[in-house]
């Protein structure tokens, strides 16, 4: 073919903020690790380690847990500094239900908003109407019904809640298994039982139908909350996660750069124990974990939201 350098561009209206565009960015993150960072320098470490995105925060969940008080969206200066430091997508957290924090963070041009139980909820009855935004949202879920409620509100990506800031994977395991078990249960039901299943889940019938037919959520499912080691990350991938959020687990450990690279390697080759074994060698001390059940003063963040 001759070189049509003068090819006329087609010029229809460009549609921004569509579901396909919002969910599509999550598709691009599949198989990857998203890391919590609090400075531009940490963001650069995460990018160099192979993170597919960073979550810009003032404090990682372990510190939020230790400090107590009300946790809110980050200072825009923190978010902007991190945006300027890296070329990978930058996410930021807002409080559950706080639609103005979400408007502010959207105005900062972040790539994804996490409506997150790690911050102190701003509304105890309603999550944000996420359809009203051009920027896509990721939300936490502890089971299938919760995941589908968030998707109906406009979430373009879902993550297990786990128990952030503990370094203990047990709650992420519980939530990943609950979501997977819910999907497998739906997939095995006769069609006429899907309607009662929707009622039981507290989820819209059309999404219940879709999950029963496809055997998966309509959006990408990541895991989060307590992942601290390469083996934790690979474990979550084998439980059906499409990718991994790591919060306090990297920059609260002895050697963040090595641990970050190791968790990326284990997430990529999660089904190859030799790679996970190699990635697990000589990483120094992992973050100090917390057993929430054994600590009467510890609040369960996963109980926030519904």
């Amino acid at each position, binding site marked *: *073919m001759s*070189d*049509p*350098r003068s*090819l*006329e*561009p*087609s*010029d*229809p209206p*460009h*549609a*921004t*903020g*569509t579901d*396909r*565009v919002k969910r*599509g*960015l999550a*598709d*691009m*993150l*599949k*198989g*990857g690790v998203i890391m919590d960072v609090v400075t531009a320098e940490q963001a650069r470490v995460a990018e*160099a380690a*192979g993170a*597919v995105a960073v979550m810009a925060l003032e404090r990682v969940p372990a510190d939020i847990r230790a400090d107590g008080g009300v946790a809110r969206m980050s200072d825009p200066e923190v978010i902007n500094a991190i945006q300027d430091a890296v*070329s*990978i*997508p930058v996410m930021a957290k807002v409080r559950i239900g706080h639609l103005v924090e979400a408007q502010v963070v*959207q105005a900062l*041009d*972040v*790539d*994804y908003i996490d409506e997150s139980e790690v911050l102190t909820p701003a509304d105890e009855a309603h999550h944000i109407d996420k359809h009203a935004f*051009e*920027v*896509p949202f990721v939300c936490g879920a502890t089971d299938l019904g919760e995941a589908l409620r968030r998707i109906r509100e406009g979430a373009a990506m879902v993550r297990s809640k786990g128990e952030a800031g503990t370094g203990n994977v047990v709650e992420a395991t519980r939530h990943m298994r609950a979501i997977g078990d819910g*999907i*497998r249960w739906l*997939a095995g039901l006769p069609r006429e039982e899907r309607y009662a299943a929707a009622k039981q889940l507290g989820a819209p019938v059309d999404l219940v139908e879709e999950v029963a037919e*496809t*055997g*998966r959520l309509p959006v*990408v499912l990541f895991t989060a909350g307590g992942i601290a080691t390469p083996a934790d990350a690979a474990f979550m991938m*084998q439980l*059906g*996660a*499409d*990718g991994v959020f790591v919060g306090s687990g990297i920059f609260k450990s002895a050697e963040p750069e090595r641990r970050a*690279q190791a968790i*990326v390697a284990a997430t*990529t*080759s999660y*089904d*190859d*124990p*030799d*790679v996970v074994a190699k990635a697990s060698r000589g990483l120094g001390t992992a973050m100090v974990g917390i057993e929430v059940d054994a600590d009467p003063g510890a609040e369960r963040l996963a109980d926030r939201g519904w």
Partner: protein
Amino acid sequence: MQAAHPVPGARIPGESLVPDRGPHHRPPAADGQAPRIGVLALQGDVLEHLRLIERAGAVGVPVRREDELATVDGLVLPGGESTTIGLLLDRTGLAAPVQARLAEGLPVLGTCAGAILLAREPRQHDGTPTGQWCLGALDVAARRNAFGRQVASFEADLDVAGLTDPMRAVFIRAPWFEDLGAGVEVLATVATDVGARVVVVRQGPVLASAFHPELSDDPRLHRLLVDAVVTRDPA
């Protein structure tokens, strides 16, 4: 290297969580002689490409190791994060084998991040070089996030040279191509505030798209790849 202790039931991110639905949910290719097209499966939207390869009449093969790469007649570099995939190519030891296959003229399709990895020179959104490693199989500069961050991501109908109907093109933090070498064909451009920008190019066996045909379920660019494999002169 085949894993010494492979894990049963490994799944490609995005696949069904229901075990008895099989691992890939892709129909087996009808024709035993169908070409095998690999999808680099280190990170990104691998599954969508595997599905379109099957729809284009070939067999889709996830590629994470050198022995898997050796079995394919064509290759897709998927969407994802180009920084991450580039680092993983290096760390898994796949970079040199992939470059060697490309040098032999292996037909390849890169979308978005995959297109950036194929380029001669990846650039930041302001035009400065990113310094990231890339394959250099395509004589273009790829300007990353050229249209802006995620809120500027968009979909539009685009005319692509050689295709009768427009493609629904999904651009996600997409690059565009600039400083094209003499051997590079422009197959599509998109209108922007700063004029038309090049978004689909071809240079011999190398095809690259700034947008994601795999997200609009349109197999026509994948068919071009399969055609290039089928018509390739055995060296």
